[in-house]
């Protein structure tokens, strides 16, 4: 059975990418199961989707714990443990990262033995909305790495899954996917089918009986204040609001009053400062500022600048 996990952020087309791969495998006469995985998160939060495909009906369910192929559409997720990109990887897991860096760069950086293949991002993108073309790169790349999906099936799957969009959008996605597909011809079929876990030799597990604990311990209550600060929701941001000091009139703090995450505070001078560890990038502040003093920048560019890359 092929087990594929695709990582990205909410809004980047990861669910659709999983569905396209699933549909393409289905067109190739595979039994398929595909699903997105998300909870209460929103746009920008790390999410993933997964696809299983085999010649027999798929009985496995839920999150893929032992992937044969891990596809990373957004390289910024690699540094976020909560994204779970490395969950359950083994020596024979193939990594595909949509990145302008080389595979050597990532192999050194990550210190893992797995095969890593990279392909540059489709083109420089400015907004999160352009980002979904990266997902199309991933779809084409995954198709080739599996080695069992024809160009025709890939194209048909994209047409099917994107049918609600305009023709030009569909064509652009097909073009980007097929380009990635062509570029990886030398890696065709490097992803191997995984087998089930043997009932003869498996890693034993340690069940525990949770001890009885009184309600002072075992009630689902949070006693400490400020714990939500520990959730770094700033990692969900794909667009960053930036206050232009020149233009800010130090009004009545309209931006901060409307921020749903209380992520704008006033410094000693009474000037608004954005807490980027928690700002989710919803851009409500941008809309509220009467002076249009808050501008928008693409997060991935900012991150690169910060690293001096």
């Amino acid at each position, binding site marked *: 059975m092929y087990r594929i996990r695709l990582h990205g952020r909410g809004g980047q087309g990861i669910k659709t990418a999983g*569905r396209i791969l*699933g*549909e393409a495998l*289905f067109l190739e006469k595979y*039994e*398929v*199961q*595909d*699903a*997105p*995985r998300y*909870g*209460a998160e929103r746009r920008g939060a790390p999410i993933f989707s997964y696809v299983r495909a085999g010649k027999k009906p*798929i*009985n*496995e*369910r*839920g*999150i893929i*714990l032992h992937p044969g192929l891990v596809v990373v559409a957004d390289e910024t997720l690699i540094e976020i443990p909560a994204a779970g990109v490395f969950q359950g990887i083994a020596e024979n897991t193939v990594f595909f990262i949509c990145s302008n860096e080389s595979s050597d760069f990532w192999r050194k950086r990550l210190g893992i033995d797995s095969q890593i293949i990279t392909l540059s991002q489709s083109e420089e993108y400015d907004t999160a909305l352009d980002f979904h073309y990266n997902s199309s790169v991933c779809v084409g790349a995954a198709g080739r790495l599996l080695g069992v999906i024809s160009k025709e099936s890939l194209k048909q799957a994209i047409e099917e899954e994107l049918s609600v969009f305009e023709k030009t959008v569909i064509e652009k996605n097909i073009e980007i996917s097929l380009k990635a597909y062509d570029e990886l011809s030398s890696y065709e079929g490097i992803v191997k089918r995984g087998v*089930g*876990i*043997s*009932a*003869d030799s*498996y*890693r*034993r*597990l*340690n*069940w*525990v*009986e*949770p001890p009885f604990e009184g309600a*002072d*311990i075992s009630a*689902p*209550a*949070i*006693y*400490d204040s400020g*714990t939500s600060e*520990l959730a770094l929701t700033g990692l969900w941001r794909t667009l960053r609001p930036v206050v232009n000091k020149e233009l800010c009139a130090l009004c009545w703090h309209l931006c901060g009053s409307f921020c749903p995450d209380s992520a704008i505070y006033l410094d000693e001078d009474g000037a608004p400062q954005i807490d980027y560890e928690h700002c989710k990038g919803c851009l409500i502040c941008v809309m509220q500022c009467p002076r249009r003093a808050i501008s928008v920048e693409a997060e991935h560019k900012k991150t690169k600048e910060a690293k001096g890359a």
Partner: protein
Amino acid sequence: MKRKLLTGNAAAAWGARLANVDYVPAFPITPQTEIIETLAGWFDEGALKGRFVTLDSEHSMVTAAASAAVTGVRVFSATSSQGLLYASEMLYAVSGYRVPWVLVNVSRGLSSPVTLEADHNDIFALRDSGFLQLHASTCQEALDMVLMAYQIAEDVRVRLPVIVNIDGFYLSFTREPVEIPDENKAREFIGEFDAHNISFRANVPLSHASAVLQGSIYSYFRYEHHLAAIQAISVFNESAEKFEKMFNRSYALIESYMADGADYVFIMIGSFATKAKEAVDMLREAGSLTGLLRLRMFRPFPEEEMKKLLKGKKAAAVIDQNLAPGKGGVIYTETAAALCNEKEAPFLISYIGGLGGRDITAEEFYEIEKEMRKAAETKKPPMARLLFSEAELEAVRKLQGIAGVEKKNEQRKN
């Protein structure tokens, strides 16, 4: 007939579409909303001809559904979890109307604490509501069970509403290949709705669900309700036979997978049962005679069938994806009751697993098989167990640390 990748939600909606439903009252809730969205789209584009109405709550939605059903039209609705419970006062009431309709529940664990993921405490809370219960384990079954549910519900021997249960996330948002029956064939299978004496005419006054203030008369009606529910066992079998002839898929009350001739069996319900199939395949490869029994019908409880299938087995592990606080697993309890006077009954072991969508791994099925074998050898079954690992307990401890549980207690002592 076409074979397509569909989510469990879309498959359930297709079931309602093929049943040509007349009336759909709706209220959204995660993870069910896609069902009513899909149906709303079909009503909008004219693929479905009846009425689609949004209501202000699940309580009103169920009231509307049953009120429509007593006029003799075919009704469908869907909900989940807290929504099902919010409607429960009416669910108990309307099952006693003795009119058929179908409700899909997309299972999601109950609050508190709040969760979005699947377990069966929501649907089992409606265990005694008087609705019949069918449980799907694949997206295909989500569609097929809705079709069969109408046939069973509308049979004059039964005439009770049916809940078809599908698991949130594991089915609701998961796509699998689904054969969508040809429209005409589906209509032929399910037939025109023959409402018999269910009708609503302004010039023929009639009163439904009348008040009964005497215990003996009340007892008669309640017991007839019970007897009608039991009739659903043979009606299900008839419907399944017809279904198999027309669509070539065979559905037993209890799915038996490699259980014939097995010494050990897992007993389960819902989508996680396919995981057990995978485990059974691997255990068979390793030489273990293990199988699976999966309840497709939970109300009525197919007691005789269960006794027959368990006869002569050495041990059976009931894996309940639910927990009745102060008692334990619901399916375990009901299976134990079915077996209590049987001579060749297996040792029965109770496991609670998959609460709030918690995964059950292949390794856990293998460990359970080991415990079944040991129980048969030593003639001493182990205590009921929660499927829960050391690592999971550690994760809880970490969260309790952040939540300041210990700190709070320290402060109080000082």
